[in-house]
């Protein structure tokens, strides 16, 4: 039993989640926009026609690594293990195309849409969760990762 949750950090997860919720709430109540990272990225890079102003999009995207540095400095060294770069490149391509075709990712659909009880976002979230679970299961069986 203990092995299942051996690596879990529920308290860190909850604190992090509340901060993410506050971030999305600030975007909603402050700027009247959805904090969807894929949409904001497309907007900043000029690959989306509508959305927040490009300066706002860039500021949000600059804030992400800034907050990450501050949090990492406060918490000490953070563990992170990445896949080899060819895997990351293929995955990045799928994420880039997929989030545009599906109009959102974990932040826009998963956090902002699900909390709004949007049917589209709940279906999108269920779909990418199922696809992610299947992908991890298959790569584990194949011993590819």
């Amino acid at each position, binding site marked *: 039993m203990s092995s299942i949750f051996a*690596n879990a950090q529920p*308290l860190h*997860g*909850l*604190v*992090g*989640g*509340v*901060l*993410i919720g*506050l*971030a999305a*709430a600030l*975007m*909603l109540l*402050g700027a*009247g926009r959805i*904090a969807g*990272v894929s949409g904001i990225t*497309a907007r900043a*890079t000029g*690959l989306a026609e509508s959305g927040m102003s490009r300066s*706002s*999009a860039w*500021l*949000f995207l600059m*804030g*992400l690594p800034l*907050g990450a*540095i501050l*949090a990492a400095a406060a918490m000490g060294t*953070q*563990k992170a293990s*990445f896949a080899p770069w060819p*895997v990351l*490149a293929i*995955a*990045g391509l*799928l*994420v*880039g195309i997929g*989030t*545009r075709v599906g109009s959102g*990712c*974990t*932040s826009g659909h998963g*956090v902002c*849409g*699900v909390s*709004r009880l*949007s*049917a589209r976002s709940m*279906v*999108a979230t269920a*779909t990418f*969760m199922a*696809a*992610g679970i299947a*992908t*991890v299961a298959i790569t584990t069986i194949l011993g590819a990762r």
Partner: protein
Amino acid sequence: MDRLRHLLPPLLSGALFGGGLTIGGMTDPARVRGFLDLFGSWDPTLAFVMGGAVIVMAIAWRLQARMVRPLFGERFALPDRTDLDGKLITGSALFGIGWGLAGLCPGPAIASLALAPAAVFPFVGAMILGMALHRLLEMGAARVQA
């Protein structure tokens, strides 16, 4: 001063978001894959991240419903589509496959540009390339229709 009122919320929101992702452990792809590893050694941490974020946002939506306009803006500009279509499902499935392969989604990937730039660059670069490919295909389809 008026400009600052508009520029500060997105920067602060991004920073809170990046800090939350880091504290929640989402900038470690192994932890994200651990959450998706339902049939292996499941790591429930991401469920707490999602839960915390969704609860706070559910309260924010209730506040939003009583507001005429955002605090630092002229009007709310929110998605209003309610239909379910093939694109929503196909796109989400493609995204999920990439998410599962790398253990990265757009937020943590961009936040990690500060923590592990060399490691995440191939992902972020390919992600923007994928978005550009989608844009090209979209523009091509529009031209065919016109």
